[in-house]
């Protein structure tokens, strides 16, 4: 009887060892399956990530220019009844027209140089009677390189630091907002023309 019990217990011990080994094998197999799954997911995710990184996201509004508002003596917006032209001089000494025949408007925009410390602008204004005035504006500024991404073209933002001008047709010019950037809704300068 005792021998039978020992034999039975021995079998039970064997069976429990076998069970433990089977569980261990199953766990290892499960671990390997999970690892394979992970590798597949990784490759999928890596390719997804790489394609996501290739997207280009540059600002749509990327023009940097100065915005002028024409004002009357009280500082209110005034429509220009005369005709206005604005020129500047290029690096090679030739003239280039920046604004052609502005009339019936109270605001206008002018380009600003990328990295020259002072822009020179020539304002030529004529009225209906054939009276003309010629003025020069020197606009001093600090230039700040502005970077979006390696996929977007290089631009400069500017900080206006001062103005000087002749006073033939211009009464005064004041800086309202010195920061020139992508924002087209800003007014940077108020320009007051002399009354005839």
């Amino acid at each position, binding site marked *: 009887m005792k021998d039978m019990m020992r034999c039975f217990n021995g079998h039970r011990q064997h069976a429990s060892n076998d069970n433990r080994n089977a569980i261990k094998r199953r766990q290892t197999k499960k671990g390997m399956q999970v690892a394979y799954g992970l590798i597949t997911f990784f490759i999928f995710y890596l390719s997804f990530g790489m394609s996501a*990184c290739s997207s280009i996201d540059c600002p749509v509004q990327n023009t940097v220019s100065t915005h002028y508002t024409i004002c009357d003596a009280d500082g209110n917006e005034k429509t220009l009844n005369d005709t206005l032209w604005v020129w500047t001089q290029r690096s090679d000494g030739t003239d280039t027209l920046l604004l052609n025949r502005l009339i019936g408007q109270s605001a206008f925009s002018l380009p600003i140089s990328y990295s020259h410390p002072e822009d020179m602008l020539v304002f030529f204004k004529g009225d209906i009677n054939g009276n003309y005035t010629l003025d020069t504006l020197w606009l001093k500024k600090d230039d700040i390189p502005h970077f979006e991404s390696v996929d977007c073209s290089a631009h400069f933002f500017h900080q206006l630091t001062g103005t000087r001008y002749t006073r033939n047709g211009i009464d005064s010019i004041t800086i309202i907002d010195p920061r020139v950037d992508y924002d087209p809704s800003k007014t940077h300068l108020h320009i007051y023309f002399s009354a005839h």
Partner: protein
Amino acid sequence: MTQARLICIFTSLLISASAAAQGFLKWERDTVPFFQGVAVSFDLAGVAQLQLSDYGQLEGALRVNLHDQYFPTLELGLGKASHENDEVTGITYHTKAPYFRLGCDVNLLKEKHTGNRIFAGFRYAYTHYKVDLDRQTFPDPCWQWDTSFGVKDESCYQHWAEVLLGIDAKVAGPLHLGWSVRYRKRLAHDDGITEKTWYVPGYGIQESTRLGYTFNLTIDI
């Protein structure tokens, strides 16, 4: 809108994972010792990224195993970007700097001592880096003056936070393989005079996506 969608997806993933593992924060009372050892891991995704693109990172982590349940983690890395003379914009961008992330993972599985883990965690991260930015001289479109564009050794920094969800599987002996998906949020940053930078070491490309990922090879030591 996209960000809100990403937050929703990530939050629902976290909630479903935690719901699947009810009571995961409850301390499991058993005879297993509290301190279960230390593991080191290496991020293979960053290395692959470095090989396949202009940027990437070499990253290692030290992870303490507390009762197979909590894993305080320190991640250290070296991020690098080298984009030479872009064929469209002509911009060259260089940066190379170390970064760290510090946080904790929680094992969400009910059976915590199997060696396999599903975990959620958080990280605080910081990097201080210098950027070299350059573009070949180009003419001003209106005035025609030669214009140079760039900065040299521009000092920048960034603090950010990450929440993550991941899997860690025991492959053989002390070797584990796993991945994590991370949602990142910038807390504070200074991008220098240019107001923006491109690649931030450890964070990745700014404004491309807020999702990050790692693929970890972990060894218990």
